[in-house]
């Protein structure tokens, strides 16, 4: 699954989140994802990038186009060196929030994407990788 194209963006401020959404929208459109799929991918990007800034204290996003057999996919990795998540299972539940949010960012992104993995360690950081296949 060697990526065909890859790019890294900083995710540190609110305007970085906007820039990340725009970059992902552009790539998703170039890859000819349907309008609904584009919207889903961009919305997941918005959620995960915001978590990176808000909870992870900033980090970066790596976006790449991947291939599996005849399928193309958009692969996004959000990484930070923040506090990590103590109870991932709880964080993945609808409505769980430690910051007065809706608590739907992680669980919602999982539903919006084809694949979702989260690795996190308290005191070291969090890495969320998602893919949407065409």
């Amino acid at each position, binding site marked *: 699954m060697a990526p065909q194209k890859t790019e890294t963006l900083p995710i540190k401020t609110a305007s970085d989140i*906007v820039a990340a959404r725009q970059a992902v929208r552009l790539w998703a459109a170039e890859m000819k994802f349907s309008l609904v799929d584009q*919207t889903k991918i961009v919305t997941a990007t918005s959620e995960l990038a915001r978590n990176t800034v808000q909870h992870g204290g900033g980090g970066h996003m790596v976006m790449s186009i991947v291939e599996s057999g005849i399928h193309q996919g958009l692969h996004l990795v959000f990484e930070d060196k923040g506090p990590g998540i103590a109870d991932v299972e709880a964080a993945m539940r609808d409505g769980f929030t430690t910051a007065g949010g809706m608590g*739907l960012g992680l669980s919602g992104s999982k539903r919006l994407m084809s694949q979702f993995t989260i690795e996190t360690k308290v005191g070291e950081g969090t890495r969320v990788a998602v893919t949407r296949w065409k």
Partner: protein
Amino acid sequence: MSKLAEIFQKHQDDIVADWSKGMSSANRRKDLISDADLKAQSTELFAAIAKASKTGSLSDIEGSDWREVREILSSISASRAKQGFTPTETASFVLSLKQPVNSRLRKEMAKDPEGLIDETTTANGLIDKMALHTSEAFLTTREQLIARQQEDMLELSTPVVKLWDGILALPVIGTLDSARTQVVMESLLKTIVETNSKIAIIDITGVPTVDTLVAQHLLKTITAARLMGAECIISGIRPQIAQTIVHLGINLNDIITKSKMADAFALALQRTGKIVVSMNKAAAPKKTEHGKDN
């Protein structure tokens, strides 16, 4: 005191005169700055440089001896950023000091070629550092300008319009972040009270992404409006957004939504006890009445 610093002291007026004369057309914008202003800036800056070089290091300008120079450079950059100079033009102003300084060094140190090379290197390094400082200060000013413009936009882009007696519309365009929501919410609530409105239509056709934060902000606004006695209708939810919202798990069941602003308006009229009738239809019964008379 180093040779360079000595030369700065001794030939201050000559160097400034040379510098002003030699400002190339590349950095000379007569449309943006007058000769007199430019001369004044050069004189002030060079006097500070000469003073700092007496006691301060000549290899960096971060020390306290160079504070005045840094301040002058920053204020020159700031005023130029606002006047519309490019960053290159602004840095060139400082870089063009190399020519008069170098030629003065050559003149004064003709008998000491090795010393000349050293002093020239030091002088050029120093001037480069000042130019870099100018560029950074220039960018900072630009960023501040942009931030202020964004704030202005924030207020400009959230108009609350009265569609009819008791009916308001709030077309939201762009990203609905926390700062924006605060402004939107305040102006909506204020207008609800002022106009004694019963219904507010929030149109989100112009919002590119509806994520949980935007949804939460919308829900907060709606709750606040309810407390003021007004019901909200959300319009402009495009099909792809509707699907995404459902997948995210956001529950809009308690909210009245319409895909089009026109439908929202029709509903609002109905709720406030008004209907829109076509003029043709309104005229039709008259005709039949007239017909009956016949």
